């Protein structure tokens, strides 16, 4: 028994000696956290953002880092759900002692993490989450993507402009889905339109046949699908299989190739809104560096991940190192990058950025110019 006690004591001593202290403010390395869905049904958000972040990291460090200190990013998997996000953010704050976190992916994740960062006074900057409710989620919550408050208006306006007055809605029962659905319904009705029905589905649903049948039986002029990429693709595919031929409108996740993979030929002509791609020299430079490194074209969220790290670096150049300091500095940042002009309003939103109207044509997502007609 004595030997065991000695062993335990030595182990505790060793553990105590291992405490790294406040690593993120050491003069050598500045550590930034990233809580993103690297696995799970929405991992495309995390993986895309990570590519952008990694690219920006090497560029920043190549130019000498921030104030002579090299940058380091620690990634934690937020798993695509609220508990995973809280876990990831907690680990970054409590163990890695970071002051700023790039995260999260889905709005459900970011909303779950918001109270945690607010209480700990650490900055959370999302390159993906678009739900309108994030605007009032806290002083420490920021995002580089425009808010769904705007997307709802844009989508409703587009549908109305097409001469469509009666729609049926299907949405995913998550923060993003509920928020955009509510925003769209309000805007569409305000414009004189009629919403015949709104059906909820769960994340990860694969069989939409009953939903398709129900919505089609109401004879809408169009179906609005507030679904993530894979679910959206399956919904569109099954809609066409069941003979539901009314035009389908989707939202920002449908820019992902995952949508095309599950929709197949049924994706042709499907319309959706998504954060607008910025066309400027900064984007071109980013795209060129991206292609060199990854041998592929960048997507919207790669660009936002890239800008997220750059924006944080810009804020920290002035010497801001703690959460409250970085937050203060971010309010004054005006950064022109791969996603255009990023400058935050009092809610941590980017009101200067907008959404674009897109459609899938021949396997590519292109700006939509033709008026919607039934396929």
């Amino acid at each position, binding site marked *: 028994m004595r030997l065991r006690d000695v062993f335990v004591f030595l182990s505790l001593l060793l553990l105590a000696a291992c405490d790294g202290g406040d690593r993120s403010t050491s003069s050598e390395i500045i550590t930034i956290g990233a809580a993103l869905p690297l*696995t*799970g*049904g929405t*991992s495309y958000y995390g993986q895309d953002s990570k590519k952008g972040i990694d690219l920006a990291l090497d560029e920043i460090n190549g130019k000498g880092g921030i104030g002579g200190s090299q940058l380091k990013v620690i990634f934690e998997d937020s798993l695509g759900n609220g508990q995973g996000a809280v876990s990831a953010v907690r680990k970054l704050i409590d163990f890695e002692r970071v002051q700023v976190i790039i995260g999260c992916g889905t709005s459900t994740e970011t909303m779950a993490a918001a109270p945690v960062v607010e209480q700990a006074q650490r900055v959370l900057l999302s390159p993906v989450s678009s739900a309108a409710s994030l605007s009032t989620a806290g002083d420490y919550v920021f995002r580089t993507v425009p808010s769904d408050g705007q997307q709802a208006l844009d989508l409703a306006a587009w549908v109305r402009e097409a001469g469509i007055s009666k729609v049926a809605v299907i949405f995913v*029962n998550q923060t993003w889905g509920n928020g955009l659905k509510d925003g769209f319904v309000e805007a569409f009705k305000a414009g004189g339109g009629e919403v015949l029905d709104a*059906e*909820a*589905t*769960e994340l*990860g649903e*694969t*069989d939409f*046949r*009953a*939903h398709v*049948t*129900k919505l*089609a*039986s109401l004879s809408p002029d169009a179906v609005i699908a507030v679904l993530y990429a*894979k679910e959206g693709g*399956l919904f569109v*595919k099954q809609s066409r*299989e*069941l*003979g539901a031929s009314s035009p389908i409108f989707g939202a920002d996740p449908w820019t992902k190739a995952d949508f*095309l*993979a*599950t*929709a*197949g*030929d*049924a*994706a042709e002509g499907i319309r959706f809104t998504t954060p607008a791609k910025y066309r400027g020299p900064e984007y071109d430079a980013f795209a060129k560096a991206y292609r060199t490194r990854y041998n592929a074209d960048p997507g919207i969220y790669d660009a936002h991940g890239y800008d997220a790290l750059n924006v944080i670096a810009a804020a920290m150049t002035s010497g801001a190192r703690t959460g409250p300091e970085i937050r203060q500095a971010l309010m004054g940042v005006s950064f022109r990058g791969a996603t255009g002009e990023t400058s935050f309003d009092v809610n941590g939103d980017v009101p200067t950025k907008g959404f674009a109207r897109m459609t899938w044509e021949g396997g590519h997502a292109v700006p939509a110019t033709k008026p919607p007609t039934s396929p």
Partner: protein
Amino acid sequence: MIDQFPQLLVSGLLTGTVYGLVAVGYSLVYSVLGLVNFAHGAIVTLGAYTTVILIGDAGWPIPAAAAAVVLIGVVAGLSIEQFAYRPVRAGGAVQSLITALGVYVVIENFLALVFGSDSKNLPSTMTASVIMLPLGVRVTTVQLATTVVGVLMMVGVQAMISKAAVGRRLRAVADDPGRAASAGVNIGAVLRLTFGLGSALGALAGMFIALDTGCNPYMGGIIGFKAFAACAVARSVNTQAAVAVAVCIGVAESLVVGYLSSEYRNAIVLGVLTLMMLLGGGALPTWEGRARAP
């Protein structure tokens, strides 16, 4: 609203057939062994992954892939029986149950580790053609093939159980293992046959699901639970009843989404199970192990 009924019914029947295929595997194992094989859902997932990888990534034709799926299902099922269940059988039913759950978790997480926790789909170039049926009902070739093959398999299994010699031995072990053993029945062989057959059907069910909507590491959970619920409602001893209940669950889900709200889709299974437990008293199968075989 009436015009959606034929389509809803047909869609539900097709989904229910898949549930039925999974339920047969559950029911067979329970009737012979008294074991609720929670790992069965993982066999379904294994079948689905095999399908997507062989047909989608490696380009195998469907019949060859189906043979591979059956093989993998049988091997997995027999291995689980040999290495996970056999050693703990003497320990009682609760121990077997926990082992079953453990096997399920291991397989599920192994698949997530190797293939990622994301879902995998067949290439978008492989789209099934649509067939028009009367009353405006539409089904895809995949759905139709699934139903036809599924029904044939279930009928075949039922015929085997009731008419073939090996089926007689199976029923003998299910009724009274002690007497069956003393009558010269090789209990071990019957158990292996049961597991092998049940797993083959489960893996095939996974293949049908994958052909329609792809696969993900967690798909076995909810499907396995629905099949288990069907067995529990049918008191699990009668395979035909379990299949019938499974099909009803599929139809009920479809009608609930169509006429009520899609939010209650999975709740239907839980509701039915709860109702049966309240009404039937001993609706869940008793936990005592039945065949204490060598």
